[in-house]
């Protein structure tokens, strides 16, 4: 739920990067962090295991420009993608204004993508949201690797709402900012009511 603070003239929105384990959610955030200048970002917090898997969440606050005299801030979160962390994943989703679903384009990860997408639907429902209408964009990540699922196939499997999708390679940064802008647009459009 975007939080509009009339006394400080701030709009805060929560964006959650969701997707199967190792699909590249944390890598997206790291890239954004690296490429954002000091004055527009806060600390990036990663609650991770020793092997760098997300344990609870990654978090980074991003200060954008202004809209209608209101300072716009985005709080970016990633969830832990590993199946057995579902309880924590669900917690992070609470209060989300928009979702970036990051799919792993490698052929052997197709089932994991589908499972994670179903899991997103279930977890949203438990918070009283609906996957059919929450601001959402899709990112087809790891397009730099060989043996990829064709985009048309990912589209058919995941994009039933016909939302914006982005081909990306989070490792090199390709598609990372377009994805972020894409979800920003969707979330801000929603402010209109």
């Amino acid at each position: 739920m975007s939080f509009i603070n009339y006394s400080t003239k701030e709009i805060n929105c929560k964006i959650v990067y969701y997707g199967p384990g190792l699909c590249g959610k944390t890598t997206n955030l790291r890239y954004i962090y690296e490429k954002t200048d000091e004055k527009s970002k806060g600390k990036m917090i990663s609650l991770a295991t020793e092997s760098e898997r997300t344990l609870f969440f990654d978090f980074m606050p991003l200060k954008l420009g202004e809209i209608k005299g209101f300072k716009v801030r985005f709080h970016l979160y990633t969830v832990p993608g590993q199946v057995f962390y579902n309880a924590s994943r669900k917690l992070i989703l609470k209060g989300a204004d928009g979702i970036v679903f990051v799919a792993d384009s490698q052929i052997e990860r197709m089932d994991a993508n589908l499972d994670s997408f179903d899991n997103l639907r279930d977890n949203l429902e438990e918070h009283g949201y609906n996957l059919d209408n929450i601001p959402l964009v899709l990112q087809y990540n790891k397009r730099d690797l060989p043996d990829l699922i064709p985009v048309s196939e990912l589209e058919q499997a995941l994009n039933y709402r016909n939302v914006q999708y982005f081909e990306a390679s989070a490792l090199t940064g390709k598609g990372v900012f377009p994805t972020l802008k894409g979800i920003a647009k969707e979330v801000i459009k929603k402010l209109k009511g």
Partner: protein
Amino acid sequence: MNDKKWLYDEEIINKLSEELELLKSESGASATFLIDKDGQLLTCASHNTEYDTTSIAALVAGNVAATDGLAKLLGENEFSILFHEGENEHVHISLIYKMVILVVIFDESTSLGLIRLRVKKFVNRLKDLLENAEKNKRRENNDGLFDDITDDDIEKLFGPSDSETGQG
């Protein structure tokens, strides 16, 4: 769909800030904040500048959410207070009326007993305020303030410097 609109109200935020200020001075704490359960800072007492309030809010909300999940698993209604004791600084976290989270940071210049006492009083004072706010919540809306946002406005949010990095 938005159940938190009441908190946006300037009047309420100002009231809460005053109360936080009072709590801070009465208890001898080094910082007092109110955050929402989703990890956004609602307001804090002044002179909290040495703290990274944004990060603290995100971590505390995660902490409260995890503890709450644990409570449910154990069949408890809630664990309403968390206390973290450090060597120099301590953090007292309480979930108030299941609505907002109060964070009090303090050191050896005061005591846990005093903090607890003052927090209790603070919570009582907040009760009326939050209840009234709750009644008002339906009234609030954006007044169409954001109705005519254009794609261009949104593009500008990211500033000129990001457009290079923004290439796909």
